[in-house]
């Protein structure tokens, strides 16, 4: 198969402008005749559905949640990037583009990334106009902070709830279109499969999760904005319901999955506490602005801490190893996520982890509290403040910046992070891989588009903090409204899709058969326990560090587990009712297949880059060894049960020089 990325000609900074002025348009009266299905109401889906509705298309929008506002985007904490350069610290569209390409370890497509950087500035304007209450300076202007992997402050935020506020903005725009009748919203409706007619995406089969009934919906084009697949690892920071099924069904119908092995491990999550654990909680990366990461230098201190004979605060300064500052002096605690995660693994592998399981490091705010306290005392004109006053003032500053995160930590762990350092450990957080899309965000199936985390397009092998929200909203508000015209302008004479056609019959039957199969197994293992087993295989062999032997083993184990699943799974209840176990079973069955593809991709990529660290490929200091001569490509996989097929899209770098990433 040949992949055409459809990158427009011209210099990088002009591609998008030229594209917009030459893209075929759909006249308003024709838009009214065209129907678009949008699956997903996260930042990408809600913004797309609202914007397409505003333009006059007939939109049908679906979510498995009980309300569009509950999409997983709601949980994003830290912020959203934009090249506004309000901080006047040298930021620019090119720099955001450059940082994203470099941060992604040179495995993303230049043209897409540049476009995202260009529209980033419009996103902030749009959100402010919607009433998103971003943080502001005393003068009333928007405030910024910095995030990992960059040296400018370009992150806009709304306390620790940026995703919530941005999603509520998009949800309000969507709600307005619903009230105007241009978007019809279907809550608690889960897409079960994709329907192709004459090779084009023309509809979906949906399960009404309340009644269990299967329903058919047709349209001229289908947009998936269904989020990432991090839950293939079972334990992740993703919401419990996040799943790959919509994208996976597209793959089973011929779409390609790109770079599935590029998964992101976030360095600052609350460590695992027991085997009943259902998910992991992220402590926003923004904390690394002010928190310092360390473990004890001496093993005797490590043991004393684990045996609770010593507390973190008992360890004197000179016996602490602030290892990120030591290893990466120029970026320090703000190195990119993959680098920070591997460093945490390294010190824990050395035996210096600070909790009972040995899998935790400290994130310490004592210095920041002192620094802020002194500066506040100064501002308030307090002469020679005592330590208690400094602490109090400093804690107040920290509380204003991160209050909700500190509360969340205390609720979960039961310790006060103002008094004692947080304990953190890396966890699966985000998936850079996803459906292969071209410049138009169209998959290789004509008429099927993918937006947001469910595509692969912008983050290469590692995503920078605060860039997922940017990408989701770029795709939904500013890209798809234009690029969908490349497809729909050719469909203005196509009549409404007939959902009584044999194509719909066939796909609906496939869905029904699979549900019946799941219910008929009546085995002995719960869906949850099978999912947990899959997660363990994935994390052990395809997590922070990977090697050929482990991956080969994992592939065999996943296959066996998939067999076990179909022989042993127990799904209670009936098809035609509200049945959350059945919903879960449907999703986990897909993870069993995706997991294998992820491992196959990791095996193919004989290099280390970004979130994909192959132990065989590291330099003498343990840093990732990229192999640009052999692997500067996007791997796009077609599913085939016996032999997955790889197509490569070569990546061309015309505007940035390929360098080995250094944050030292």
């Amino acid at each position, binding site marked *: 198969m040949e992949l055409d990325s459809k990158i427009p000609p011209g210099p990088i900074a002009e591609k998008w402008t030229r594209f917009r002025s030459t893209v075929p348009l759909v006249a308003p009266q024709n838009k009214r005749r065209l129907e678009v299905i949008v699956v997903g109401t996260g930042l990408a889906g809600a913004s797309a559905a609202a914007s397409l509705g505003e333009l006059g298309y007939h939109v049908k929008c679906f979510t498995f949640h*009980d309300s569009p506002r509950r999409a997983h985007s709601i949980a994003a904490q830290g912020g959203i990037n934009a090249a506004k350069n309000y901080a006047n610290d040298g930021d620019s569209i090119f720099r955001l583009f450059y940082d994203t390409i470099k941060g992604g370890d040179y495995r993303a497509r230049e043209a897409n990334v540049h476009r995202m950087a260009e529209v980033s500035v419009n996103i902030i*304007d749009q959100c402010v106009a919607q009433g998103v209450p*971003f943080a502001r300076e005393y003068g*009333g202007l928007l405030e910024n902070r910095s995030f990992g992997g960059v040296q400018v402050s370009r992150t806009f935020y709304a306390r620790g709830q940026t995703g919530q506020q941005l999603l*509520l903005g998009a949800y309000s725009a969507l*709600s307005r279109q619903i*009230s105007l009748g241009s978007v019809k919203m279907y809550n608690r409706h889960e897409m079960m499969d994709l329907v192709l007619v004459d090779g084009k995406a023309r509809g979906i089969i949906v399960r009404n999760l309340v009644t269990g009934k299967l329903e058919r919906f047709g349209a001229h084009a289908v947009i998936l904005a269904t989020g990432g697949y991090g839950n293939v690892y079972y334990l992740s920071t993703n919401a419990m319901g996040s799943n790959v099924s919509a994208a996976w069904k597209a793959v089973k119908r011929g779409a390609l999955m790109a770079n599935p092995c590029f998964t992101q491990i976030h360095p600052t999550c609350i460590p695992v506490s027991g085997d009943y654990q259902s998910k992991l909680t992220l402590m926003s990366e923004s904390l690394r602005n002010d928190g310092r990461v360390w473990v004890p230098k001496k093993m005797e201190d490590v043991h004393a801490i684990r045996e609770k004979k010593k507390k973190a605060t008992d360890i004197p300064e000179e016996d602490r190893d602030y290892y990120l500052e030591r290893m990466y002096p120029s970026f320090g605690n703000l190195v990119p996520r993959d680098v920070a995660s591997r460093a945490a693994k390294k010190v824990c592998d050395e035996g210096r982890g600070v909790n009972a399981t040995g899998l935790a490091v400290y994130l310490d705010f004592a210095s920041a509290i002192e620094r802020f306290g002194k500066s506040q005392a100064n501002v308030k004109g307090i002469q020679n403040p005592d330590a208690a006053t400094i602490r109090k003032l400093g804690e107040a500053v920290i509380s204003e910046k991160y209050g909700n995160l500190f509360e969340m930590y205390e609720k979960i762990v039961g310790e006060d992070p103002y008094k004692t350092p947080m304990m953190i450990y890396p966890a699966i957080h985000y998936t850079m891989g996803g459906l292969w899309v071209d410049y138009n965000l169209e998959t290789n199936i004509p008429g099927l588009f993918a937006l947001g985390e469910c595509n692969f397009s912008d983050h290469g092998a590692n995503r920078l903090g605060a860039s997922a929200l940017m990408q989701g909203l770029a795709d939904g508000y500013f890209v798809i409204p234009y690029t969908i015209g490349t497809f729909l302008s050719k469909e203005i004479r196509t009549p409404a899709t007939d959902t009584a056609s044999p194509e719909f019959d066939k796909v609906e039957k496939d869905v029904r058969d699979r549900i019946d199969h799941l219910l008929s197994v009546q085995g002995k293992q719960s869906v949850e326990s099978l999912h947990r087993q899959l997660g363990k295989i994935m994390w052990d062999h395809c997590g922070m560090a990977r090697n050929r032997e482990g991956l080969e083993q994992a592939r065999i184990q996943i296959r066996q587990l998939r067999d076990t699943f179909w022989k042993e799974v127990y799904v209670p209840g009936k098809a035609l009712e509200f049945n959350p176990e059945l919903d879960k079973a449907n999703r986990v069955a897909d993870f069993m297949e995706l997991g294998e593809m992820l491992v196959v991709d990791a095996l193919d990529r004989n290099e280390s880059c970004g979130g994909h660290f192959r132990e065989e490929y590291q330099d003498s200091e343990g840093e990732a060894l990229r192999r640009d001569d052999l692997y500067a490509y996007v791997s796009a996989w077609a599913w085939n049960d016996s032999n997955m097929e790889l197509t490569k899209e070569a990546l061309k770098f015309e505007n940035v020089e390929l360098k080995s990433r250094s944050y030292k």
Partner: protein
Amino acid sequence: MKLTLKVWRQADPQAKGRFETFSVNANEHMSFLEMFDVLNEELLAEKKEPIAFDHDCREGICGACSMVINGQAHGPLGGTTTCQLHMRHFKDGDIIVVEPFRASAFPVIKDLVVDRSSFDRIIQAGGFISVNTGQAPDGNAIPVERDKAGAAFDAAACIGCGACVAACPNASAMLFTAAKVSHLALLPQGQIERKTRVKNMVNQMDIEGFGKCSNTYACEAECPKEISVDYIARMNREYFAAVIAGE
């Protein structure tokens, strides 16, 4: 710790519900929902039907979880959603009664799962600023006072869980609606539609069958985001101003 749970079971919206008693072994580090996971795994092992409940983020932000625990929406701990409540706040031998969020505008779907789409319809009635994509001026074109932005944020922090409705003896949706009205009324961007917004949203609240507010303040006490009842007073002022101006 060994606990006794009395949980509301209801097969579907029409069915008559009843309490069912279970005993479960929990440990103090578990969250309340993880304790339910453990119970459900046990039920599945006995080929019994697990208890249905809504949940997703398990971080207190999506607003999906919704249990009334010993008579309190989201349980005994202030400012906390059900998913963030940990078992260290209970003790061995406790009897815990768990019910859904009850209100006629929140019909039960199954067990502890209710239909809160009435909240979506209140937002659709006016909880937005009418600005199409691409029309916005520069983000810094209109400065917003820091404190005002902060107050708007406090109101915007509502997660749409419906605990305020469940807590209210009249099942009123005033706190939820007031939070959204205040969020937008506090910002310069929200001024143009200020009057129509509050009228339409209050009107929709009545259409959905939510009750009137009788100032018991139970909503504020059980709101996991500690949204202040001051916003209700603000909405009342906004509403009367809008109605008078409209006449």
